[in-house]
């Protein structure tokens, strides 16, 4: 869906559902997912429908993902960090995660 302009910056290694993804410095988690061509980042807790980041500016909450073991983080407001583990979410969040 998206490509990076050649000029875009230094690589940052993160994993998404266990698979390594090459993000760039300056990416947010949501942008890294989009750049990697990941289709959806969660399924809804209501009907289980797949959703992907929609606004990228912190208002829609479609970009919720589990980051370093903590669920429902707003991916579009969170800068990536080397070694970060991201997991897509399925339905309702599990308490304690």
């Amino acid at each position: 869906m998206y490509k990076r302009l050649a000029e875009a910056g230094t690589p940052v290694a993160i994993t998404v559902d266990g698979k390594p993804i090459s993000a760039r410095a300056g990416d947010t988690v949501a942008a890294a997912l989009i750049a990697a061509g990941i289709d959806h980042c969660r399924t809804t807790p209501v009907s289980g429908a797949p959703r992907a980041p929609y606004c990228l500016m912190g208002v829609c909450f479609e970009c919720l993902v589990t980051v370093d073991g903590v669920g429902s983080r707003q991916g579009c407001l969170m800068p990536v960090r080397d070694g970060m583990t991201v997991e897509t979410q399925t339905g309702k969040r599990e308490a304690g995660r």
Partner: protein
Amino acid sequence: MAVSYYDVAVVGGGLVGVATAWGLAREGCRVVVLDEGDRAVRASRGNFALVWVQSKGLGLPEYAGWTIRSSNAWGGFAQTLKEETGLDVSFQRSGGFHLALSERELEARANILKRLHNQPGIVDYKTEIMDRGQVAKMLPDIGPEVVGGSFCPLDGHVNSLRLFRTLHTAIKARGVTYLPSHRVETITKDGGEFRLATEKGEIRAAKVALAAGNANMRLAPMVGLEAPMKPERGQIVVTERLRPFLNHPVVTLRQTDEGTVMIGDSKEESVDPAGLTLGVSATEAERAVRLFPLLANVNVVRTWSAIRVMTQDGFPIYDESETHPGAFTVCCHSGVTLAANHALTVAPMIARGALDTSLVAPFSARRFHVQAAG
């Protein structure tokens, strides 16, 4: 407006009013519900949704019996509503807990229950004090600070917002006229009928049922009744939807059928529904995390404050006017718990035109004078 003459005008479109209206419509009455607008202070939108028995009745033992009657009727009530509307209000009578975070709290709890059950004439509703080990068997996720609690098998909960919507859907299907933004200003009796002046014109009815919550205090004297109230504010914190982890409601914390966790049960002497005391929300949150540490990282998505409809002694008021026959009060705090009674027991009495004193005499507001005299 189709008709402006009705058998019964129910004043108030909260849970008490619509449950009563539904019951009246089932008895064949032509009913109008007069309500305030969207921004009204409406406890029906802010309650905690427990159908709760334990602790009810200290100071008025008949209240325990009245509560159990409703709790027993609730399953059938929910079923009937489902048949009429297709909506499931998700009533669960799984038994509920009161949890203690210290030996002192547990002792205080045991004392209350002892005093309650020592009252003459009280129904035994089998509340049991449990130690930590017993509680942990039923609520495996409790935190290390939980020392025990009390458990009552009659306690349950429901999706109260869906109940509210279901009752509105059901009264519409039964032909009840619902008029929002019709705040009742005055009520007079003229000849055989009541005239209710509202912001949007006059409504006439043969009978009036006052179910206007704390506003009953203002309205009741217009028809020879009284409803001494002392409103108080409660705040609730709600989390995002979680997978089910809690099989029994706790009096201060429950998981809804949708997955959200509601945390509440504060009491402040305030009638400002717009205000919210952050320190109160913080205390609720802090206790919630101590009760169930796995909630620590969970997101709070909303908080709200609501004004409890509270009579001066906390017990319901059901009354029939002596000076204005045909005028009734239906006024209580626990409108979710008592919804089945209001729909199935109180409404038929109003339809017949007389309260059944064998059931509701203890709840007359006349008790306030007896107490004052004594």
